[in-house]
């Protein structure tokens, strides 16, 4: 009996010990709260921007946001569509941005995407400007330059926005806590902030023709931009009497001080492979590596006609992937580019000859002066003479002749400035050519505009003649020159079109000149019936309004949308 009892006690003790061990086990488990520690490994936390490398990376990130505008369909739609010199071709989902119908509303994807990306860039610039002064181990020189670059980009973005949207939110500090409190600052405040940023940026930027890291903003880029800001402000509701006077010396600095010069041949400015040249003040960088190219420069597709379904032709990288989005207006072809004897810019901007890359015998399609044609490789299949050649003359040609009266939404003179035969294949959408955002010819034209606005007609005339002489066919330089009596504002407007067509400036130019509505009604028949006074501003993205604290009462839509 005694033994059994002992045994049972022993057993009980053993059980007790076991239970104790279990409880202990559970408690130890509890102590392991570090098991719930969350470590970010594959991503990087925000504090990284407070380091030397983080500062450089933040600036690179800020630059990347300029790609949202230059060389994209949205940047082109905002600037080429609905102007006096370009109207819509056959394809694309965005024709209403040309025709100004009420489909162009606040839910427009381009508006939203651009808005989002520019503000992400602005927030990045804000972070750099705020954090850079306190980053240890970075020289003052580097800090100064990085802050100046951030201010350049921030000013660039706000300038774009104030032109497109009018009053927008002016955020000059990094967003650190989530907030829905947003509002629209008056245009004058935005211009003041832009001018302050650029004025402060100029001394901090490199005073060189180009940065050793090609694509970084230089002093010339900031001066060119500030000059353009003044010229634009000078016609805005925020104008001051000295805006044009302030612009003039800035442009002159750009022309005189940094070794920039116009190329001798207009055709070389946009020649494939010549993206880095002496005329480029600042270009948006694209590459051939998909790892660094983002969405790429897509401009190569939009301005082309549908050559690839025509007899003797198929799509190739040389001729491009024809999206047929933008078609030059009759005004552009027949008035702006009327002079082709002396001025080389029509021939050097538009493609007039297509060579066969798909030999064979075909029925003709648009040129009914003959029924069938046979092409060997390299034979001309199509020619655009630019005038209405007679049927008899056309009949004598061993190729189809596309005359202006046969132009359609699919068939029209294609702009060659952006062609990109360097793509890996004929389908690749992500082009690799840098987008020239600022070039010296534009500086001259803006200088002429600033001079003209101040009544300095003689100076404006001689400024514009620099551009005219360069554009001349060899030996026609004198014939190209104009006199002070020719120097009208109408002339200036057409000269800008001749020089800068397809370079994402036209809509902004018309808006600056205050005659967008008038000229679109006059020269763009697709848009004419619909465009209204309120179209000088783009709609604010609906989600910005919906998400704002107070909705439309605190963040009102632009009128008309």
């Amino acid at each position, binding site marked *: 009996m005694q033994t059994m009892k002992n045994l049972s006690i022993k057993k009980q003790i053993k059980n007790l010990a*076991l*239970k104790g061990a*279990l409880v202990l*086990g559970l408690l*130890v*488990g509890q102590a*392991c*709260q570090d*098991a*719930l520690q*969350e470590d*970010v*490994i*594959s*991503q*990087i*936390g*925000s504090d*990284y*921007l407070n380091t030397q490398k983080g500062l450089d*990376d933040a600036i*690179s*990130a*800020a*630059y990347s946001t300029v*790609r949202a505008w230059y060389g994209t369909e949205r940047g082109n739609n905002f600037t080429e569509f609905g102007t006096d010199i370009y109207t819509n071709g056959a394809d694309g989902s965005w*024709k209403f941005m040309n025709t100004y119908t009420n489909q162009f*509303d*606040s839910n427009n994807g381009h508006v939203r995407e651009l*808005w989002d990306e520019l503000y992400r860039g*602005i927030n*990045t610039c804000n972070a750099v400007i705020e954090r850079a002064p306190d980053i240890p181990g970075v020289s003052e020189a580097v800090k100064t330059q990085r802050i100046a670059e951030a201010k350049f980009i921030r000013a660039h973005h706000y300038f774009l926005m104030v032109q497109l949207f009018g009053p927008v939110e002016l*955020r000059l500090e990094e*967003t650190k*806590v*989530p*907030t829905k409190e947003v509002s629209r600052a008056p245009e004058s405040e935005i211009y003041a902030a832009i001018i302050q940023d650029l004025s402060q940026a100029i001394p901090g930027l490199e005073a060189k023709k180009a*940065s050793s*890291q090609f*694509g*970084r903003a230089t002093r010339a880029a900031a001066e060119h931009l500030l000059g353009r800001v003044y010229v634009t402000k000078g016609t805005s509701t925020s104008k001051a009497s000295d805006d044009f006077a302030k612009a003039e010396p800035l442009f002159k600095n750009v022309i005189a001080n940094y070794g920039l010069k116009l190329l001798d041949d207009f055709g070389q400015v946009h020649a494939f492979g010549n993206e880095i040249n002496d005329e480029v003040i600042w270009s948006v*960088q694209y*590459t*051939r*590596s998909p*790892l*660094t*190219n*983002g969405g790429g420069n897509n401009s190569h597709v939009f301005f082309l006609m*549908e050559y*690839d*379904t025509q007899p003797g032709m198929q*799509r190739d990288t040389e001729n491009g992937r*024809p999206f047929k989005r933008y078609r030059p207006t009759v005004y552009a072809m027949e008035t702006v580019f009327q002079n082709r004897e002396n001025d080389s810019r029509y021939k050097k901007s538009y493609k007039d000859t297509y060579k066969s890359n798909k030999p064979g015998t075909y029925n003709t399609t648009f040129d009914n002066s003959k029924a069938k044609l046979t092409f060997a490789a390299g034979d001309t299949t199509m020619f655009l003479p630019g005038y209405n050649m007679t049927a008899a003359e056309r009949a004598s040609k061993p190729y189809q002749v596309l005359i202006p009266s046969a132009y359609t939404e699919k068939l029209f003179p294609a702009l060659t400035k952006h062609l990109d035969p360097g793509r890996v294949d*004929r*389908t690749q959408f992500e082009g690799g050519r840098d987008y020239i955002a600022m070039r010296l010819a534009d500086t001259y034209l803006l200088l002429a505009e600033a001079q003209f606005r101040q009544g300095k007609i003689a100076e404006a005339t001689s400024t514009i003649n620099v551009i005219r002489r360069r554009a001349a066919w060899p030996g026609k330089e004198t014939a190209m020159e104009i006199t002070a009596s020719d120097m009208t504002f109408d002339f200036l407007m057409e000269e800008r079109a001749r020089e800068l067509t397809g370079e994402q400036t036209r809509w902004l130019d018309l808006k600056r000149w205050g005659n967008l509505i008038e000229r679109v009604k006059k020269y763009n028949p697709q848009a004419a019936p619909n465009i209204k006074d309120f179209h000088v501003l783009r709609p604010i993205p609906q*989600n910005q309004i919906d*998400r704002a604290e107070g909705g439309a009462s605190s*963040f009102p839509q632009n009128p008309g*949308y």
Partner: protein
Amino acid sequence: MLKKFYTYLTVVLLLVFTASFVQAQDTQVSGTILDETGMPLPGVSILLKGTTRGTTTDLDGKYSIAAPADGVLVFSFIGYNNIEETVGSRSKIDLTLTPDVSNLDEVVVVGYGTQKKSQLTGAISSVGNKEIQELPITDARQALQGRAAGVDVVQPGSKPGSAPQVRIRGRRSFNASNEPLYVIDGIPTVGGLEDINPQDITSMEVLKDASATAIYGSRGSNGVVLITTKRGGAGKTTVSLDSYYGASYELGRIEVFDGPAFAEYKRESRRATGAYPEGPATAEADAKLFEPIELESISLGRSTDYVAGLMQNGNIQSHQVGVSGGNDKTTFFVSGNYFKDLGVIINQDFTRYTFRINLDHKITDKVSIGTSTLFTMSDRNGENFNPIGGALQENPLGKPYDEEGNLIFLPTSDGLRTNPFAEVVPGAQVDETSRTRIFNSIYLNWNITKNLTYRVNFGPDYTVRRNGRFTGSQTNARRGGDATGSVDDRFQFNYTLENILNYSKTFNSVHNLNLTALQSFQKDRFEQTTLDVLGIPAPSQLYHRLGDASQITSANTNLVEWSLLSYMARVNYDYKGKFLLTASARADGSSRFGENNKFGFFPSAALGWNLHQEEFLKNSSFVDQLKFRVSYGSIGNQAITPYQTQALLGRTSYSWDNTAAFGYRPNTIGNPDLRWESSSTFNTGFDFSILKNKIFGSIEYYITNTSDLLAPQPLPNSTGFGGFTTNIGETQNRGIELSLSTLNLERGDFTWSTDMIFTKNQEEIISLPNGDDIAAGRFIGQPLTVFFDLRKIGIWQTAEKDLAASFGDKVGEIKIEDANGDGKINSLDRQILGSAVPDFSFGITNRFAYKGLDVSFFVYGRVGSTIRSQFHNNFNYLFGRYNNLAVDYWTPNNPTNLYPRPNQNQEFPKYNSSMQYFSGTFLKVRNINLGYNFSSTVAKKIGLSSLRLYSSIQNPFIFSEYRKVHKGIDPETFIDGEQGVEGGTINANIAPPVVQYTFGINAKF
């Protein structure tokens, strides 16, 4: 982490070691359970009364369980009367169960244990082996559709290998997942059930109210599905063979214009702009409009049906061999299964191989170990690729093949429309997903004393998924450009480690007490590697040597980790089986929340009252069983992606000339205050059985309030951020669930019975911090997601020209309701058009049996939802270029109000999004089943112990307005966005649903 692991290991080893000191008290009891016809009954639950110790019979009706001499074994099975047997000195107990349409004494698996159904206090639905086996299903979740009240299962289309979506009692959460938790053999899993072979499953229990799910704490808020796989029993080894084969045919086809209709539609798109003369077609005008190939087709009357050319007859098959058996110490169940679903779209199929080993072994009488091990390999083709979209848009007047039968890549001159048949040329498009998964549930069970047991569960789960893509040059994606390829490799390792203590004792013969304590740790590690290239030199390389490509377009790796640490305690108490009480509390700590908010505490309590045991009902001839239940509890939800508390940077790419300039910029704003979302549920229910068990069922009513919702909150983008995750607002779900089974007729050998379920759930947003949130699409008083858009009220008719013009519209264009009456149509006229959430749904199964013959059919319906049909958006641009849905469009001579006039000057009709909303109500006959059980004497003659042959038709009929009036196929859609499709939306890339004719055999040797 290592330290923690060793701590566990020490405890476990200590337990194993000391176990041998403990004296044996139990004996092994085994036996065979037969049904009323003398057939072995698999899946019978055997529970040692007053404990949580239990087992189930194998395919041969055999079982084995350890029990003390004074123990009482409770044998129960759905549809049969319970039997209680005192063990005494017996080691073998054979029984025959008798049918009982009342099943309140069934033993059901609950979280961390089993319980008699009559003792349950929570809301639980069960689906047994029978229901799972009677449908030829790919995914176990399909067996829940229309079978479990309160469980909404949807499976749009028939893409092989695609998973259904399950929602239990509606949705609570904006962003945190609404996906229920699946627990397989005790181990909570991450990811779905697509790797699990449904034929290995013996039962599924759906835990719905807080009392039932609270023990799963943080992850129980969306309901819990417990899945139990088959296990072996001691005795003779049995081999079973289960096979079926079915032929699949598309249940309908989206109709587009044929050649002549396309030609007329193209003409009309030009008449609208004055580019084609009004009146009948003329050869002269046609010659200007159409290209030569089209003219040729028109004159020849030739029309190509591209969709038809991409469809095939599919089939589905499953072949399974199972072996089970064992002895007193060790029992096993081993199975191998081959499953293949060949889709009705060329290039889509899914093949799965599964192997299972379930093993139980007694080390001593007190200590046992076991494992459920699953090994799965599957291959899926066409997960991301579907050629149908291109075929729907292809001009039917083009010519797909030349005279020599060679494929013409551009059947018309339209450069964007390549030949859809080119997509299915072998090797043109490769889209292969392979998965390999090893899932284990390993346990050690130690009966420390008669009343106290300790169990440790360890559940390692390893999944490798690889997707390989190759897109050849001659495809629409490349259109002659260089071939592209990519691989996406994902590795996931997840483990769960649980310590469970259970104490069970009866005091004074009337107070039954059961205590459970749990500590659990789960960790998940997910890694991903992706590589995308352009310019694969030889098409034959597919995606197997991407390094040879001319360009790497993207390369990346990723790592995501999370962990969860939990403690739980539960009390089950009953007085004489009459008054029942369950109370539980769980504390969960999640790595996903900020430092001060990691832990959440979630209590629950439930009461039950078995009224039929009270004197006033005990002798009732009407009421057999009646139980009243009520519960209240709260549960958390942490299902947001990790790292949301942190402010993180996003990478950008740029360059200086050709020097890479990658950057980082603020990408997420982070919210360190993120905390648990929590749901409180009140549930009350009656379980009843009347008229000698001829009618039985249950009724539930519940209200769930969810607060501190984890939700993405959009921010005005001018802040630099599009949104962040926060805790906001409150939602409510309330509903009624009804399950009813009736024995309608029983005459001689003939029986007719019916099972019915009815679910009505109302999902509602109760409060938001700033009222209605248009930006996020959230409206108070509405379901969590709604369709908010302009409302189409018709087409502008000729007589309304001026009125149309005042809105900036033209005759023949869509007429939108000017909701605010301001004379303009803009974003202010958007209104709530409906929601994907149904008002109610129901399922009815009727079964007829006569001797060995049985027939059943299953009808399922959902009523009151609104759906969006991408077909009516993506393939309805009406601009006279691409082919279009064969819709009734407006012309001056056809003043319809259905669809606008085609117009060549539009890429899509103005306000086209308003054309895509339809009623989602449907009624489906999901299944008709006919089976014959050979009598055991016949089976024995051919060397079998049992034999069943059956045939079934899946999905023979769908009744819906979307199908009948709008030429859609099937309105069944996901409620929540998933697999790249928004909630409530019919994916235009869907593989059409199929009707299947299946023949199958179940044989046992």
